[in-house]
């Protein structure tokens, strides 16, 4: 008996038969996207270095520029496409952090400027900050105790 497959069923069959190729494609796209984003960061950093800034200022200016880029590209609805192509390559860099702030804030603007934009901008950035800062406080306490012992 011949069975005709719907497009969706066919896609599922293809994915089952060739799970490897999709992963390889995703890895390549993530590598390329993440690599390019970090290269842009490196160019910014070297430009600031040439202006005679110290290491700390270089790092700070680089994050500011990358965060601005991420927010800007999200605002003009371009970062979504970069994410669709690059997956984790667009998620893991700091531009992705900035995207995670602007994207829900835009989406929930209709719920108002306080509980919409103001609250929803931390939908993903909130957990990132909570766990990051919490981990850093533990690290600080451990370091303090370790210093007393040594």
């Amino acid at each position, binding site marked *: 008996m011949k069975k005709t497959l719907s497009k969706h069923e066919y896609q599922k069959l293809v994915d089952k038969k060739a799970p490897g190729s999709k*992963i390889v494609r995703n890895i390549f796209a993530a590598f390329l996207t993440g690599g390019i984003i970090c290269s842009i960061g490196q160019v910014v950093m070297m430009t600031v270095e040439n202006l005679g800034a110290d290491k700390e200022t270089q790092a700070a200016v680089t994050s500011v520029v990358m965060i601005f880029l991420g927010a800007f590209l999200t605002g003009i609805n371009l970062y979504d496409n970069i994410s669709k192509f690059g997956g984790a390559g667009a998620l*893991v860099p700091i531009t992705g952090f900035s995207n995670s702030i602007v994207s829900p804030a835009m989406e929930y603007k209709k719920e108002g400027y306080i509980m919409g*934009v103001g609250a929803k901008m931390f939908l993903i950035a909130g957990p990132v900050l909570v766990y990051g800062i919490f981990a850093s406080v533990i690290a600080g306490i451990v370091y303090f105790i370790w210093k007393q012992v040594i």
Partner: protein
Amino acid sequence: MIEVLKAFLLGGLICVIGQLLIDLTKLTPARIMVCYVVTGVVLGFFGLYQPLVEWGGAGATVPLTGFGNTLAKGVIKKVNEAGLIGALAGGIEAAAVGITAAIVFGYIMAIISKPKIKS
């Protein structure tokens, strides 16, 4: 120019790890971001992240692990200067520029732009 290539390679590799986590473990993007920052704090605390920063420059500082590293470095520096209270102050102090920039730019862009109408 070689620095840009190094940043490309290291940044790309760090993102590939994230992609593997998405494809093989079904971790949500938010969890991956949290994992990256916390991993950065741990690696930074043990001084294991700084060699990556020195080798790959922005390839190590632009990914979220670099943000975690900044938090850890800040906390250690502040504990050295001010004692135990530095554990509470150091992290945000070191990351202040990034966090504030993200809030300010994020807010402005969200206010002035319109979401794409989903088809």
